[in-house]
Each structure stands twice: as C-alpha cells, then as structure tokens.
C-alpha cells in the first residue's frame, strides 16, 4: 500500500491505518528509536506512541512525506523518553533529588530567549546543510537525522566506511566553524 492510500485510511478514520502504517514503517522507525534508546521495551513503547500520535494528528495534519513525518515523531518521542529515563536514573544524591523536584517548578514550553536561540540555531543549521554539496548533504542527514550506522550509509552510497567517517569528521568541523562564525554558542 502506498503512502497516499495510507493517508486516505487516516482521513477516513479507518483503524486499519495504524496496522498498515506500523507494518510498513516499523522497521524504519524502529531503527531510529533504537539508535536513541537502545532498549527494546522502550522502543516498543515509543513506536506505539508514534502510531497513536500520528492517528491523533492526521487529520487535520496532512504530511506530504509520511516517512519523514513519522521519523520526526519517533525521533522526538525517543529523545523525550531518553530524557525521562535519564532523569529517573538520577536521584542518587540529595542534589539530584532537589534538581528533580525543582524541574517540576519549571513552566512547560520554551522561554522567549530560549525560543529565539533555538530559532537562530535551527536557521543556522539549515543554512549550513543547504550549503553542503549533494552527497555530503545526504550523508549528513542520514547520520544525524535518521541515526543510520556508518556502515549502512557507506553501502548506500557505494563508499568505504572510512571515507564516510572522514566526510562526517570534516562536516562536523565545518559545522563548528560555521556556528562560530554565526556567533552561536551552545
């Protein structure tokens, strides 16, 4: 079933949409989530949340690229899950405990300053990625957005792993220079 047909199921509110989308994209989303969480159980939970999130969002959302849309959801949910887990692991000392308690006082959402900084960083990243020539851009996004293993990328692009490693190393250096030039500090 192609993505257009899957979208039709979502818009028709047919519950089979979830089964179909999970069957088609489970492997893809699994690899993203597992690369972040590294835990089978957490990944399962995250994938279930991904399908649910998509079900709740479509419609009205009408993503033009379903795989990218699901990939982004999975990635964000996995990052959140990882943060949650890390926070749970803390708590060994009173300091950790207090930090954890104080986190509850922090209002949800970004502050104005944070939002501006994030927007600036996002714009700068986009400028940098757009400036990369074809294959390099493809490799950068596969590695840092899809979290693809280097060997996987190397095979996909018909290069040696060391070549890909070297390209990524140079791109990271270039990104560092680019961010510094833009006056962005993290």
């Amino acid at each position, binding site marked *: 079933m192609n993505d257009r047909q899957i979208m039709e199921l979502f818009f028709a509110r047919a519950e089979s949409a979830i089964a179909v989308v999970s069957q088609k994209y489970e492997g893809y989303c699994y690899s993203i989530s597992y690369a972040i969480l590294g835990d089978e159980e957490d990944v399962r939970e995250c994938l279930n949340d991904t399908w649910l999130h998509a079900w709740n969002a479509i419609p009205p959302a009408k993503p033009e690229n379903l795989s*990218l849309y699901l990939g*982004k959801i999975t990635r964000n949910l996995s990052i959140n899950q990882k943060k949650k887990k890390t926070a749970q692991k803390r708590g060994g000392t009173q300091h950790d405990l207090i930090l954890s308690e104080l986190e509850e006082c922090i209002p949800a959402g970004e502050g104005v300053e944070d939002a501006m900084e*994030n927007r600036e960083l996002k714009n700068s990243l986009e400028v940098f990625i757009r400036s990369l020539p074809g294959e390099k851009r493809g490799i950068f996004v596969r590695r840092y*957005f899809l979290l693809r293993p280097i060997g996987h990328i190397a095979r*996909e692009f018909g*290069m*040696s792993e060391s*070549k890909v490693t070297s390209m990524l190393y140079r791109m990271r250096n270039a990104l560092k220079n680019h961010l510094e030039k833009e006056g962005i500090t*993290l």
Partner: protein
Amino acid sequence: MKSEKLFEMIGKLDDDLLAQALDISAKKRIPIRKILGGGAIAACLTLLLVGGWMVMGQRVGYRTFLEAEMTRDPILAWEDPLTDAEYSAYEIDYANTPVEERTQEKYEEFHCYATLRFQKSWAEANYPYYYYYLSGRSEYDGSRVVGHRNEEVSGTSLLSASRTGPESFIDNMLADACAILTPRGDGSMVVEEVLWGALDGETVMLAPQAVTASMQKDLKDPARQFVIFLHDTGKNWVTNEAAMGIYTYQTVGLFELKNGVLEACTDLADVVRYDGESPEDMVEAGMALAKKYPELIAELAG
C-alpha cells in the same frame, strides 16, 4: 547537554530540506552492465586472482596479467531471492524479533539479504562500488595525491567496471590498495588509478596495475617510486589531531614503480626512506614478508 541540543534541533529542521537530503543517493559513477550474478563474479575473480598468482609464478609479465584483467568486464545479473514486498515483510519481521532470539544464523541471513538489496540498488543505479581513502601516509605534490587505503570487503559488495581501475575485490579478503587521486575544488578526490593487491590466508595475491605515463610524470620520483600495500594492524594511528582507528596499517607488500609498471620489491632501505613515520614497523613487516615468501621476493627482485 550541548550536543543533545544540537541533535534535538536537527530533528526540527525544515521538512523540505530533510526530504530533499534524504532523496539524495549516490552519484552515478562508471557504467556497468548486468550479466553475471554476484556469486559468479566472486568465483570469476577468485579464478582471476589465483590466475594472476600463477601468471606471476610463471614469470609472465605484469602487463599480461593486467591485460587479462582489463579485458574482463565483471557484470552483474540480479537474481532476487525476495520480492520487494517479501523483503519488506522480512525486514519488519527481523526488527520485531526479540533481541534474545536474534541468533547468529538469523543475523547473518538478515545481513546477507540486506547486502543483496543494496547491491541491487547499486546495480539499478548503474554505478560501481569503489574504494579509496587517504591515510596519514598520503603524499601531495600540489596537484595530485598518492594515497593508501585498506579495506575489508565482502564479495557481495562487489561491483566493478574494470575499465578505469581494477576495483575488483573478493569475498572475505582483505584487499589493499594504493590510490592516486586528484583533488577537486570541493575538497573531494577523483580516483585516477588504484593499485591493488591482497592477502588471502597463506597466499599473497597481487594485481599490479600499470601507471600511465602522465601519472608517472606527476609522481615525485618517477624513476624510483615505491608503492606499498598495507595491512590492517588494529592499532590506532595517531595524527596531529587525534588517534584514529581507521588509519591502522602495516606493510605487507613492497613494489617498485619502474617504467610505468609495478615490478619489484624488497629494497627495505628505500622503504624506510619512503615512510619515516614508523620505520621499525616497516622494516619488521618487510622482513616478515621476505621470510614468509622468499621465492616471491627473489623472483620479484630478480
């Protein structure tokens, strides 16, 4: 925390930008045709390499071997064991297999299928799979680079045009090559020529490649240029910037470039001169090689 922020922000990039980047596939490279299966190519190359070894053993010139190699046009015919839908289902099934049930056998099967799919996509995209990399031992003379690389390759990733370079490797072998590259404006390198050889168990397999006159002219010392085939030692190579596991080489073969052809080896003093980074290792490797393959060394040197 800083890298986490950067990582998180990459996930929020513009959809069009990401989609466009993910649509980018490998550049189209040298054309290939599709006739033989991957297994057939591997078998063919086994014969080719063993044949090459025998040719050398019979004191037939490298040119002969080279010409034989160049007349071959390894070609791929895809015999797909799974349809796209079957593979998709298989991939999902594998992803759903609990980790504890992922036996070595299952993993190998999955790896095999996955590799075959990549091979298919390469074949469909009509480009060969070639290897090159510059190590810390590369030399740059202002316009060209003589670099060395080392790659463990698998037969299933074998595609080769054999018209511009012998990028023909073989199953489960450690293939070693020396590449001569020309930098492009964007910092990437164009492979001008690849010189290659390999070590398979107790047998050294060599596939010397002639170097064109124009390439030889550009080399630093055209009259006496050593080309070194290297072997992965598993040790880190320390550069000015970092210790990197990808630069872990040791010499296994030494060849002299004379009149455009790789002809001989054994002059260890020259090898030390060639690479002053680790002379002890180089000498030790050369001595080990000479001890292990005395007949070869005598013959090549003779």
